[in-house]
């Protein structure tokens, strides 16, 4: 542990709550896993998991669903992180989707997400027999997330039924499931985007450099900046990559992640910029705009 600032009472409370949830998931389930998506929320989640089981190590592996379209910097950060902490890292790609040639550019974001993320996740959970999966989702991200439980029950086939959610009183979580059923667990449910960055700053948690502004090769698309991370991004007629000072508020598949123009190159800069922001973080995610209730539909099908 590096020297850290004292947490505010608010962050300390969120931290303790999340640690309690992580321990609960580890105790109550036969084979839990931590969904590690490499973003800032996953970084916080992993940091909390390391704290929760100290002086032991987290009694579960990390799982990354790799669509093969993540930023290269994300993949190197992922591998370095797992190695640094000596944690088991499982990487799963939907091979069947890959051989069908599903990709975020010509297949469309909807189909790509369905096959390479949602289906891939279900495949991995089934293949390893995980009965509980921790995720870094927050209730402040999106409207249907605001209604999701901390311990969110999934029926056979990983289906989420929003109208049949178990009431969740106090912190007395109902962790009971039958074989074939599973639980998604969200220790960061009550955190906001502000809290995540404040905590990263206070605890000095490493994050992917893509969150910080730097000159990057980008093209302008649907009002956002798309980074040309490798040669697979087809350029449209008259489109030439230009170098801009940009950064990302959320990270996913690079052709679907819009950057914002920014000069914020340090954590304090990012926090200052965010407090002045007038646009939500998910705006940069093209997959959320597919339909008014698109997140709820994806989640019902098993998306995280």
């Amino acid at each position: 542990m590096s020297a850290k600032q004292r947490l505010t009472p608010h962050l300390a409370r969120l931290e303790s709550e999340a640690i309690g949830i992580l321990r609960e998931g580890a105790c109550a389930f036969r084979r839990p896993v931590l969904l590690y998506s490499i973003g800032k929320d996953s970084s916080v989640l992993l940091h909390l998991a390391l704290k929760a089981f100290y002086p032991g190590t987290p009694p579960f592996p990390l799982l990354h669903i790799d669509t093969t379209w993540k930023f290269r910097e994300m993949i190197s950060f992922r591998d370095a992180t797992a190695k640094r902490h000596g944690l088991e890292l499982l990487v799963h790609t939907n091979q069947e989707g890959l051989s069908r040639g599903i990709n975020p550019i010509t297949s469309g974001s909807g189909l790509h997400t369905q096959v390479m993320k949602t289906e891939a996740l279900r495949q991995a959970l089934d293949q390893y027999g995980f009965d509980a999966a921790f995720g870094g989702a927050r209730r402040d991200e999106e409207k249907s997330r605001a209604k999701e439980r901390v311990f969110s029950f999934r029926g056979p086939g990983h289906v989420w039924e929003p109208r049949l959610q178990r009431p969740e009183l106090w912190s007395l979580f109902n962790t009971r499931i039958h074989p074939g059923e599973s639980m998604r667990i969200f220790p960061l449910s009550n955190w906001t985007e502000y809290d995540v960055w404040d905590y990263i700053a206070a605890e000095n948690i490493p994050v992917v450099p893509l969150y910080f502004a730097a000159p990057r090769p980008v093209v302008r698309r649907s009002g956002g900046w798309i980074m040309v991370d490798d040669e697979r991004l087809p350029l449209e007629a008259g489109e030439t990559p230009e170098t801009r000072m940009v950064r990302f508020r959320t990270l996913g598949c690079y052709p679907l992640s819009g950057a914002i123009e920014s000069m914020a190159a340090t954590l304090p800069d990012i926090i200052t910029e965010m407090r002045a922001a007038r646009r939500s973080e998910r705006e940069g995610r093209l997959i959320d705009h597919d339909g008014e209730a698109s997140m709820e539909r994806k989640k019902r099908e098993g998306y995280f």
Partner: protein
Amino acid sequence: MAAKRDLLRFITCGSVDDGKSTLIGRLLHDCGLIFEDTYSNLRTDSQRHGTSGDALDFALLLDGLEAERQQGITIDVAYRFFATPQRSFIVADTPGHEQYTRNMATGASTASLAIILVDATKGLLPQSRRHSIICSLLGIRHIVLAINKMDLVGFDAARFGAIVAEYRHFAEALGFQDITAIPISARRGDNIASLSNNTPWYRGPYLLAHSEAVDVAADQADKPFRFPVQWVNRPNASFRGFAGIVASGRIAAGDAIMLAVTGAQSRVARIVTAAGDLAEAVAGQAVTLTLADEIDIARGDMLVAPSARPETADQFAADMLWMGQEALLPGRDYLLRIGHAWTTARVTSLRHRLDVTTREHKAARQLEMNDIGLCHLASLQPLSFDPYAENRATGAFILVDRFTHETVAAGMIRHGLRRATNIHRAAFSIDKTARSERYGQRPVLLWFTGLSGSGKSTIANLVEQALFAAGRPCYSLDGDNLRHGLCRDLGFTAADRVENIRRAGEVAKLFLDAGLIVLASFISPFRAERQMLRELIGAEDFLEIHVDASLETCMARDPKGLYAKAKAGLIPNFTGISSPYEAPENPNIHLKTGDFTAEACAEQVLQALRVKGIAC
């Protein structure tokens, strides 16, 4: 003081259309927390689903589920987050409709303040009272009475005063610490983030100012030390720590602690966290304690201050809010979670149902979804707890259905019951083993379950004759016969059926103890009760026999003419006609009486007993 005022969790409640979601949307808007892209979505949504004409409908920010947006109502609890320089807020926006009361209680369980919204044009409604009573029951002590839609009554001070007076009178008995009444218009923003010019007669604070200032200083830290052990951390042979969150009070290295259930004592050696050892930990902190002595402690145990022990009992009285689709059945076993302990518990008696509009106590035999009642419960293992009114963290429990795993109840313990404490089992020298050896047989319970007319009693009678002829001490218990005596007071409602089976099980257990083979013929339609029997008797000695004939076959046989009566509507709650039969999933013996004679089925039972080395 600043350190204490870190976070306020509150809940908004009131009747449908009182404007709960609109109020929260307004608070988020006035705190500058609605982003531009959210605005543009809201504009589209307002035109499609909105109820505010051309104006923005803030409620659509919160009603996130498709069904909610289509019906224009809130179904589930939504949590929203906002902050001002003075405080962070988590608000639970909860449904107003009566059928979603359980979701309102969910929001209330973690809140310390409630905003009760009342529509100024309608005045207090039954839901306003209902929600206030639920808030009180769930331990909320701070109330904001927000009289909304004041613009529609011309900001009339007299109208405001009349509603407030009526509410204060009603709420006198609810034990709230403070009630702050504020005239507002959520849609127009009056008295939300600033004082309104439309209410010059109002001298109090605006809503946001009050929310920032109200002192709910959770005094959890000032209560006796309670530490429910969540997890035993044993990374290697030299470290054994007890991980959990301090539920109340504080603890310092060197302090004496006690294991609540057994009274075993030790001292805290270290308070371990990843950021280094602490000298002291207080309520809300996640820590790992190591102790000076090796005492046997497991997940679910509670460490407490020896000077202030909680109650420990296996029978207790509790207020329960029923949330299950199926009604609460006294006598049925449910899973109970308190702290990190799971056990099995049943309601031994339902003292009364609370009329949540009038606060009257009504007699009841069962609780339906959204009902609240005072119950006596018995648990398999003794539990350590504090009365909920004294400590929300150690006095609350949930009940979970053993088969569907649905969360069926929220419970708030009032006190332990001493009845069981002074009744100890007498130990006799002649026990089940001695009798079993004398008779040279293994006492077992043959439990025949099936529809009326399926052939239970007929087959049991044949089996008993064969056993008796072979010199086996045995006895038949029959559902109809028991109902003439021991169970004469019971009817055929689901609740009475559960109690009927419980009594039959206890009687069977006594006969087994006497060394007999017992044959019991009961419709016993519910899986849960047959599971209860299996656990009461022990799986080794319990043989579930499904006497299986189709409903059509049983109706055609109709030996007692009951099906004809039931179909004519003369017998309510008749299994197979107007009451369900849950067939066994894995019976020990499966008899298909539609296909085989009673004699063949009896032989099948005897053969199974021979295979098990039990008889004949």
